[in-house]
């Protein structure tokens, strides 16, 4: 019951914020709405028994990535976007393609999960940081290391791109 309450509340928040991300004219509003989406998703993660992921979601996404976005928006002082569309593809096929996507996903959901099991808070204790860390550092060690290399490369790329010499 409480689950349902929370889910309904935060799902609604997420969807509204998501729509807001798209419809807002000013990028910084979109950014903050996106933060809203992420925060509410974090709550849903908690409901799904993933406390660590929930916190990581907030720390990494809301706390770091989105701050970067806001930072860049402030830096470029990006204003309202100018509507000079020259993309016939998007204008013609965009809407139908989207509707098609939504429909397909919906029918797949209906087809594959006619009677999905009920998720209750706390019926999956496996998401504790301990289990998570154990899995990460034993079974998924190699991907983990590879990811670290990826991050290193990303850092280098960012540094190289943002250097002054470029302009």
């Amino acid at each position: 019951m409480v689950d349902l309450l929370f889910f309904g509340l935060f799902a609604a928040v997420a969807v509204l914020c998501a729509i807001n991300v798209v419809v807002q004219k000013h990028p910084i509003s979109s950014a903050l709405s996106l933060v809203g989406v992420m925060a509410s998703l974090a709550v849903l993660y908690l409901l799904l028994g993933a406390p660590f992921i929930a916190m990581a979601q907030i720390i990494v996404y809301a706390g770091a990535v989105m701050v970067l976005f806001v930072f860049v928006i402030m830096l470029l002082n990006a204003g309202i976007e100018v509507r000079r569309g020259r993309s016939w593809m998007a204008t013609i096929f965009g809407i139908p393609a989207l509707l098609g996507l939504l429909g397909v996903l919906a029918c797949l959901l209906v087809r594959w999960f006619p009677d999905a099991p009920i998720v209750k808070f706390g019926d999956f204790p496996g998401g504790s940081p301990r289990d998570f860390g154990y899995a990460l550092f034993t079974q998924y060690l190699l991907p983990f290391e590879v990811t670290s290399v990826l991050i290193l490369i990303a850092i280098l790329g960012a540094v190289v791109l943002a250097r002054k010499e470029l302009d």
Partner: protein
Amino acid sequence: MEFLIATSLKLAIIAFILLTALAYIQWVERKVIAHVQVRMGPSRVGPHGLLQPLADVIKLITKEGVLPPHVNKVFYLAAPVLAVFMALISISVIPFGTSITIMGHKTMMELADVNVGVLVILAVSSMGVYGIALGGWASNNKYSLIGGLRSSAQMISYELPMSLAIAAPLLSAGSLSLRKIVNAQHGSWHLIPHWAIFAFPAPQIFSFIIFMIAAFAETNRIPFDLPEAENELVAGFHVEYSSMKFAAFFMAEYANMVTVCCVATLLFLGGWHPLWPVRWGSNFAAPAIFAFAGAICIYHGINYVRPFDRITLPAFGVIFFGCAGLFLIPQGVPVLTPIFWFLAKVSFLLFVFIWIRATLPRFRYDQLMSFAWKFLFPVALVNLLVTGFLVALVS
């Protein structure tokens, strides 16, 4: 149901104490800095200026809230709320002491014992930047924009060493729940307590220092108060703010201070565990201190300097003796002593914050960044590595 009642009660108490404390920390700060600079500090309003915070609050509330015409209204108004909200929310996972039992209802001395408490605090503090950044941006003012930019960059940069510094004691404690971490620091070896900073095998003294430095940056305190550097940016991100909105930013800053001090106490200084073991009579420290304070007050009240000291100081003396007596009540001891130790440590750290503010000059921006990335971050990393190695070695 009982849970709800208990929680709401605790909520009320904590909120009241915290908010009052916030107001009075400002008074303490002004007093301390004044004495460091050989001044009197606030002394007009009430005895020793004790009513100064009240006066400030009244002033700020009754001031006219100016809404500049060129600002982005929504964010301009949202920013301070966001800031203070994010600052206050993280106090909810901080335990102050052991459990307390009131008429058969046993309850822990904290709002919520989250099993990932440390992460919660990190998360919330990482969200804290939005208030300042937004405020700076929404004011639509060059100074405040620069302040916002600086604060966002600075907070992101210093979050890394802070997280790494926090991770090190977690390794030796082996849990993410603050209460468990504190319990892991229970006991002592002869006179040396098992606090994280003295812990075997890996004393966390370095990560403690790193954490404190990063905390200064995260709370925008001197020497890292570049977002509000007066002589460069007028007042930085809150140039355009006035009245309660301005006060909200200040509350946020002090609330953040309290939070990081609590976290430092819990992670590194053994939470509510006494400085030396009970069998050496640590339980009598609190009454002794209060009695001493009371004695001093009464002494100075008897041969006074200023006329009103004749009344006020003995009054304080009596109050202090009362507190001392309170700590001697057997039923009170298990409840009050931990709280005393916890608050003592926290207030010491707060004093350090104020002390540093009175002592150090401000960094230059590039110095700030290079310090974070080229010094603090590697050191924290190495410290984490060494800790992990030692812990693995011992276990």
